[in-house]
C-alpha cells in the first residue's frame, strides 16, 4: 500500500485549522487526500462534526435564572430607567 503523505496524527492536529480555512492550498489538498483514503480519520471527523452539532445552542435549555431578588432589581431598574 502506498503511504499517504499526511499521517493520522498530523490530520487530527491540523483538522481545526483546516475547518477554519487556515491552511494553504497545498496543505489543504494533502489533508483532503489523506481524508479520502483514511476511513479512521473520516470517522474522527464525523465525531468532531457530531460534537459541534451537539454543542450548537446546547445551553439554550439551561434554566439558570437570576435569583428572584436579583431579577426584581433588574426589572425595577429597567422600568425606572426606560420611563425617563
Amino acid at each position, binding site marked *: 500500500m502506498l503511504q499517504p503523505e499526511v499521517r493520522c496524527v498530523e490530520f487530527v492536529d491540523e483538522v481545526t485549522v483546516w475547518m477554519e480555512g487556515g491552511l494553504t492550498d497545498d496543505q489543504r489538498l494533502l489533508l483532503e487526500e489523506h481524508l479520502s483514503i483514511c476511513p479512521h480519520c473520516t470517522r474522527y471527523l464525523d465525531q468532531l462534526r457530531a460534537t459541534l452539532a451537539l454543542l450548537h445552542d446546547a*445551553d439554550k435549555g439551561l434554566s439558570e435564572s437570576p435569583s428572584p431578588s436579583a431579577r426584581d432589581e433588574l426589572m425595577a431598574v429597567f422600568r425606572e430607567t426606560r420611563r425617563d
Partner: protein
Amino acid sequence: MSASYLDELGDDDAIVARLRDGDDKAFAALIDRYHATMLRLARGYVATKEAAEDVVQETWLGVIRGIDGFESRASLKTWIFRILVNRATTRGERESRTRPFSSLAAEVDEPTVDPNRFIDSGRWQGFWSVPPTRHVIPEQHVLASEASDRVLRAVDALPPNQQVVITLRDIQGLSAADVCDLLSISEANQRVLLHRARSKVRAVLEVYLDDRAVKS
C-alpha cells in the same frame, strides 16, 4: 416569561427597539435567553459562583443603561458578551486572579488525541492503532439530549480560556473574528484554544458513544 418571545419579535433591531421602548417582557425574555450562558462565561474569569452572579447582574445593569447607545455593527448578543467580558475582567483583576487569556504563550503543547492510540514506530508510525469507533450519534431525541448534556459537562471541565472560546464559537455561534476581538486574542491563539477544546469534547463524546454501544 419565555425566551421565545424574542423569536416572535424577530431580528436584533426589533428587539432593541422594544427594549428602548421599555417593553419589560422583551427584557425579561433577554435575561431568560442569555443568563445561563453569561454565568458560564463569567465563571472563566472569577473564583466563585457568587462573584459570577454579581458580574452577570452588573452586566444586565450595563445593558439597561447602554441600550440607547447600541449600534447594530455587532449583534446584540456579541454586544452583551462584550459588556460581560469587560466586567468579568475588572472583577477578576480585583480578585487578583490570573486572567484567563494572559498565560497563553506559556502553555505547554497538549496532544490532540491520546498518543497511545497511534503506532509509535516503524513505517506506519503516526497512523491509528486504536482508531475511533464506528458509532454515530443517536437519533432518538432522548439520547441526543443525553449526549448533548454530556458534551456540555465536558465543556464545563475545560480550562477557563478553552471553555470561554468554545462556548462563544460553538455553542453561541460567534465568528472567529468576533471572538478574537471580544477576547483581545490573536487568530492563532483563538485557533489553538478552540482546537484543544474541541478535541477534548470529542474524546468525551467518543467514550460516551462507546459505553452506550457496550450497554445496548
